[in-house]
């Protein structure tokens, strides 16, 4: 589906270019004769993004990228709402909105048997529960009609099934526990589940008087919204400026939709690393080959295991201090790393910084390019390169099946 869209997109781009070329001979702004109509203006495909302290009540986000989205009741141009502080996450799939910030009543999807559809979204540290609704989704000039969207913490389906809460961790059903008003998952696959149309995973639930684990047709599952745009639907590009080593606040950048669909998202000479079935790639670090690694705007630091780097020490008064499990070297470390795609392409002369977390956090910034923490050794083979990777870079995430001049998705390019 994605590749077909990408193909159509490529075709229309060619036609558009041809129209420009043909129109060049006329040189007239008027269109009174039999000539072709002027091409439509290009779609605004760029949304602004910001790394700031996040929404109230917490206002305590670190290295978290946000944007604003507009959603409407399907088919309506007036029942709409713009919501800020939606986290931009290249490591998940789908749009999810926290119910408390939603003023619209959006229709809940129903399955063939009439049951309401809900989801138990599993994040590493917890779960989010709520119905799947449909909404018309807008960001920049892009639109996706009747997009399946999760509404987290919706009072219409308030009872969390035991099978969902049993997945454990924090219930992230409020803005405070979620740390955002919603999340925009634009990772390199189309859906948030690989095979939920044929298998149950404790993700999707059919709800009548109670809710039970269910399979769901793919077109009712929560998709990466980019894949549902009419155009610019083969991926997205995150552009962020460099950030001073010690940190900064209110770092602003761009989220550009589409790859090679307009002049502003054309591929150039970037490094293209294709991804495996888990959206992962290989990191070579410190003599180790870490084959379950990932680059991810939804991780707020650089996470890896290195027993030679000093960990922060929690003050005796606060043994569960936030700095536990983060690195606190005496002076900043600059470490070499090689990232390798499934296509064999490797980065050249890449380094990253590890700062002293305790010192950095004292400055109360929102963006820290050298924030790094440990991974437990049980996460064998992982290097999680989070938002710090994106500072000072233009990072494209191409969806599976996307065909661009740079390569075939899923890939990450920078």
């Amino acid at each position, binding site marked *: 589906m994605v590749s077909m869209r990408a193909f159509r997109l490529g075709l229309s781009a060619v036609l558009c270019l041809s129209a420009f070329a043909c129109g060049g001979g006329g040189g007239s702004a008027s269109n009174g004769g039999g000539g072709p109509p002027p091409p439509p203006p290009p779609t605004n495909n760029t949304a602004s993004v910001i790394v700031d302290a996040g929404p109230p009540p917490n206002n305590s986000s670190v290295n978290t990228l946000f944007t604003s989205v507009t959603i409407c009741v399907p088919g309506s141009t007036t029942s709409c709402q713009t919501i800020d502080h939606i986290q931009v996450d290249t490591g998940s799939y789908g749009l999810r909105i926290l119910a408390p910030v939603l003023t619209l009543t959006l229709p809940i999807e129903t399955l063939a048997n009439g049951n309401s559809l809900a989801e138990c979204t599993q994040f590493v540290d917890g779960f989010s529960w709520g119905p799947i609704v449909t909404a018309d989704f807008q960001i920049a000039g892009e639109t996706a009609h009747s997009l399946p969207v999760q509404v987290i913490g919706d009072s219409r389906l308030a009872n969390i099934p035991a099978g969902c809460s049993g997945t454990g961790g924090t219930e992230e059903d409020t803005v405070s526990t979620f740390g955002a008003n919603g999340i925009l998952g634009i990772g390199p696959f189309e859906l948030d589940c690989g095979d939920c149309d044929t298998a149950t995973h404790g993700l999707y639930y059919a709800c009548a008087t109670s809710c039970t684990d269910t399979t769901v047709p793919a077109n009712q599952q929560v998709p990466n919204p980019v894949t549902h745009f009419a155009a610019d639907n083969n991926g997205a590009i995150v552009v962020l400026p460099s950030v001073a080593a010690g940190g900064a606040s209110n770092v602003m950048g761009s989220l550009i939709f589409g790859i090679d669909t307009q002049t502003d998202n054309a591929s150039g000479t970037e490094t293209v690393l294709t991804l495996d079935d888990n959206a992962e790639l290989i990191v070579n670090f410190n003599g180790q080959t870490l084959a379950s690694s990932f680059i991810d705007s939804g991780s707020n630091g650089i996470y890896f295991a290195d027993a030679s780097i000093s960990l922060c020490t929690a003050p005796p008064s606060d043994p569960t201090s*936030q700095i536990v499990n983060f690195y606190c070297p005496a002076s900043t470390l600059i470490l070499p790393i090689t990232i390798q795609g499934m296509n064999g392409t490797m980065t050249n002369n890449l380094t990253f910084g590890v700062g002293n977390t305790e010192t950095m956090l004292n400055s109360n910034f929102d963006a820290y390019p050298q924030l790094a923490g440990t991974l437990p050794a049980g996460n064998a083979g992982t290097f999680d390169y989070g938002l710090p990777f994106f500072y000072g870079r233009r990072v494209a995430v191409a969806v599976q099946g996307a065909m661009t001049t740079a390569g075939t998705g899923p890939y990450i390019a920078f």
Partner: protein
Amino acid sequence: MPIFQSSDFKGAALGVAVLIAALLPHVASATLGQPEITVQSDAARTHAAIKSSEDRTGYRVHEIQLPSGTVMREFVAPNGNVFAVAWQGPTRPDLRQTLGQYFDAFASAPRTKLSDRRHLQIQQGDLVVQSGGHMRALSGRAYLLSAVPSGVNIGDLH
């Protein structure tokens, strides 16, 4: 005290595995801190299956394939109790069952300013839970500090 007589243990483990395979083609997850026999509990509901059982120095590992596609490993101490569990796959196992009496401590673990949705490292009393990954690829493990047999490298429990 010696941990196991290796050959006896292997034989016994093989026997148990064969017995389990013969009697209970569908087995569920074990419960942390409980005897190994709970590996077989709750069989009909979850339709999981033991893929393999392996003896390692100082403990035994059962690898269990859950219908969700997630693989779970259970680590059994010489005293027959499950001292650690680990998982890897698209979704988590039923941790309420897997962690048993320790589940509530896990579920109520506090978040901090530096929490994101990709990492979890908590220690609540005797319980340690560590988790990582991202949507469609989650992994983690839980173990009881006091129950880890001496000489076992925590890093091998995955």
